[in-house]
């Protein structure tokens, strides 16, 4: 067998050396009635050529960046990924190694995590970042749990624009430890309003997504004031991490914790995963942080090296009193993001953010000029915004689809108060003429 070297001759040698008559005999601890007495009912094994042909056929049925233009974001963003990201992250030393518990033989992974932590601190304006959580949604839930532990309060107030899937996951997670989630409402311009009325002395934290699910930029200063007043933590959740390169760092605006999704940094959309949950906090809160942390230290000769540290927070040491149950996280995605950010650098990332922003501003200006289309929300945006369409989101998107465009998200299930509308995202992967084609399709005027 190609993945299993031992041959029957090897097996015979080994059985003899072990001193048992058969492989079967090794399974003697399994009671006979617990054994499976038939072969598994699975398709027979196939050659590599056959498996790839089969999977190629399946993959060929899906739309992808290889076949369509994407204006669909809503938490998962189509961005260009430089070739060096794949080339480096696919090195076997990174892909086929384990969590770096043995630091002397894992310095590659450890140094990269330390670099990632540094970058995220810089981008968020906070002091400590961890080595990744599963995704933006569970990172948000972990941030809320962290706030509950820090404040010993149960209530979580969320902005109107927290991604609905994140809201769901938050609900799933905080129920166990007795948390409850209260959502603020959306004002006419798309931003969260009346936060103050929801926050009280029971409130552990306010979670504000920036930019919001519908693309608008929230007023973080207002949220901060409310949080401070009640001793609650301000948690800023970011789903489009590229926005961090343009917008003021949440930490500088008073956020205590930044959580979210870093998929935009060199991680493929991948039908939704694996992505990269990020979490950063103030130094004072480090011992309540979930997940892995890498720290600097020295060896016996004083040479610098890196190790997993502060693990007394973690499940493998603290068990039921751990800050989280997370173990395996998203290491390789973290590596991709670290490579991506190293390639882009501060100027490249800023320019990319500005380009995304400029495309959205252009598109919005065109929407305003296109009969049949509307901009229902007036608040400023980054690279994503709501477009009102003449008939229905579904019909408008279907028109785009027949022009080879995945035109955005139909907002009917998410925000039906806006009338027929779609959420449109413009990244560097769409050109001006793509935008023009999209708008014509949404309006029903073009092709």
């Amino acid at each position, binding site marked *: 067998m190609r*993945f299993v070297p*031992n041959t029957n001759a*090897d097996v015979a040698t080994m059985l*003899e050396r*072990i*001193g048992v008559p058969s*492989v079967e005999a090794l*399974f003697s*601890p399994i009671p006979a*009635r*617990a054994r499976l007495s038939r072969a598994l009912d*699975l398709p027979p094994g*196939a050659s590599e050529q056959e*498996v790839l042909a089969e999977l190629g056929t399946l993959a060929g*049925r*899906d739309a992808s960046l*290889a076949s369509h233009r994407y204006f669909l974001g809503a*938490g998962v963003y189509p961005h260009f990924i*430089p070739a060096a990201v794949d080339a480096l992250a696919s090195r*076997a030393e*990174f*892909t*086929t190694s*384990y969590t770096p518990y043995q630091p*002397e*033989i*894992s310095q*590659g992974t450890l140094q990269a995590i330390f670099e990632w932590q*540094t970058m995220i601190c810089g981008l968020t304006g906070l*002091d400590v970042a961890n*080595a990744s959580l*599963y995704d933006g*949604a569970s990172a948000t839930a972990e941030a809320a749990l962290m706030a509950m532990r820090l404040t010993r309060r149960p209530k979580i107030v969320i902005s109107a624009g927290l991604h609905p*899937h994140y809201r769901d*996951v938050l609900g799933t997670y905080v129920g166990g430890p*007795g948390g409850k989630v209260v959502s603020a409402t959306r004002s006419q311009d798309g931003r969260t309003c009346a936060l103050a009325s929801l926050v009280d002395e029971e409130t552990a934290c306010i979670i504000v997504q920036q930019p919001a699910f519908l693309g608008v930029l929230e007023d973080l200063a207002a949220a901060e004031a409310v949080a401070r007043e009640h001793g609650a933590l301000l948690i800023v959740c970011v789903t489009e991490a590229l926005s961090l390169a343009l*917008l*003021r760092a949440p930490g500088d605006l008073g956020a205590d914790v930044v959580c979210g999704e870093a998929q935009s940094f060199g991680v493929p959309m991948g*039908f*939704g995963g694996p*992505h990269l949950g990020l979490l950063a906090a103030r130094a004072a809160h480090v011992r309540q942080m979930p997940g892995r942390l890498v720290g600097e*230290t020295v060896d016996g000769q004083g*040479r610098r*090296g890196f190790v997993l*540290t502060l693990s007394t927070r973690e499940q493998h*040491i*603290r068990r*039921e009193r*751990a800050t989280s*149950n997370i173990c*395996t996280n998203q290491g390789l995605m973290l590596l991709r993001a670290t490579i991506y950010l190293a390639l882009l*650098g*501060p100027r*490249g990332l*800023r320019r990319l953010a500005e*380009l995304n*922003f400029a495309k959205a*501003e252009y598109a919005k200006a065109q929407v305003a000029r296109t009969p049949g289309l509307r901009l229902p929300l007036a608040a400023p945006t980054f690279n994503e915004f709501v477009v009102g369409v003449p008939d229905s989101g579904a019909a408008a*998107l279907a028109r785009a689809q027949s022009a080879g465009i*995945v035109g955005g998200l139909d907002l009917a299930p998410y925000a039906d108060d806006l009338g027929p509308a779609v959420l449109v995202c413009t990244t560097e992967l769409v050109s001006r003429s793509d935008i023009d084609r999209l708008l014509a399709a949404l309006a029903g005027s073009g092709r």
Partner: protein
Amino acid sequence: MSGESGAPKPHGTDSAASIGRVGHGARGIAYEEPLLFERSRPGREGCRVPASDVPSVVAADRLGAAAVREDLPGLPELSEVEVVRHFTRISTWNYAVDLGLYPLGSCTMKYNPKLNEVAASLPGFAHAHPLQPASLSQGILALLHDLERHLAEVSGMDRVSLQPAAGAQGELAGVMMIRAYHESRGDRRSKVLIPDSAHGTNPASAALSGYTCVSVPSGPDGLLHPEQVAEAMSEDVAALMLTNPNTLGLFETHVLEICEIVHAKGGLVYGDGANLNALLGIARPGDLGIDVMHFNLHKTFSTPHGGGGPGAGPVGVKNSLAPFLPVPVVRRLGGSEGEGFALDYEFPRSIGRLHANFGNVGMLVRAFAYLRSLGPDGLRRCGEMAVLNANYLLARLATAYAPATTGPVMHECVLTDRLFEGTGVTTMDVAKRLIDHGYHPPTIYFPLIVHGALMIEPTESESLEGLDQFVAALLEIAREAREEPDLVRGAPHHTRVSRLDETRAARRPVLRWQPAGER
């Protein structure tokens, strides 16, 4: 020990050839490399952003100056060649499955077939958006649907959700379903039983779900005994979390009886599937009485560990728990709904969502490719060879490293440092010395109930002669421990950095780089 002489000599250990060589490893060159930030120079660039084809806008004008940041600290400035060299160089400091035996017990560091990587990179999987219409996603949905069915068959469970992103999230999903199950019956229970040999994620997940954990002691034979379970079991116990084979590498022989005891008191049994590799095609948790379990696709189903993830931790349940599965679930359409597949969110009793999307889909694709490659016979061969390899190591090492258990083990064996008492050499030293011999150390000091545990899981990816080489290294270390204990205690000697001061790291945490002036 029979056959010692039959073991092929590791290459290059003959007299003259052995200078500077230690077993499977040798002295070589390591490349130094600073941090990215130390390499950074103002004005360097590693990637060019395309020219804009739309009118330029000044963000501060539109958003207000206060909303726009001025600089981006923490990002280095490097050219592409420097980034490539940086990561290539630091990669050489890692050990990897592709370099050799990676005997981490409980981690199942099996070979990750290259075909899986090609499969996962197909654009229809890698570059599709989770919210694109189902009509544009029929390929991946079909795959997910089939994978669910295959995992159910392998495990003997009725339904599977692919959503959890790793084993621990699978545990969380499972325990939450247990809670939802009891609550749906108006039954409020507060405790979960967890054997003392369990992995830390078990109690952590139970606690996160709001349960109190009760530890159940293993017997002196390393097994869970029905009496202990019976004693701890009550109507207030929601579930027992069982790892089978357990973390000592032993099959829980009394599993059927234990499950009956728990069920009799209205409890459910959670199965930690981390060690499923041993049972592939041989026995199925679902047939043993397990009600809900997780899979670690990054262990049993060969998706690469990635230096710490991503993994995937699907959760399987019996029909009784199916109404509580996380949403969405993949559904095959039929009848008036037409052909094909859709994502179903209408699951009124679901515990809810666990992931922003559908989990770590790229890992699911890899696991599917693996299942398709192996088929029923191949899977069974994996289970058999994983167990044979572990028993072979146990047999060959038993006299030098006092084993924690007797009798046939399953996929891994737990040894100890007991025989080195008096030499000052500990399990930690043996682990570090293995590095000089060219191997990654095993899992150490786990399970917590074994003093000085060395937990070795070879997996089915190892060959007989590969195991013999590893045995030779461990036997040589045992000799060194007796004859040259300082050599072992000072290990590793051949790495770029020697033993690192973990205490210092925790006492004075330095968790990010800062420019010299700002530290």
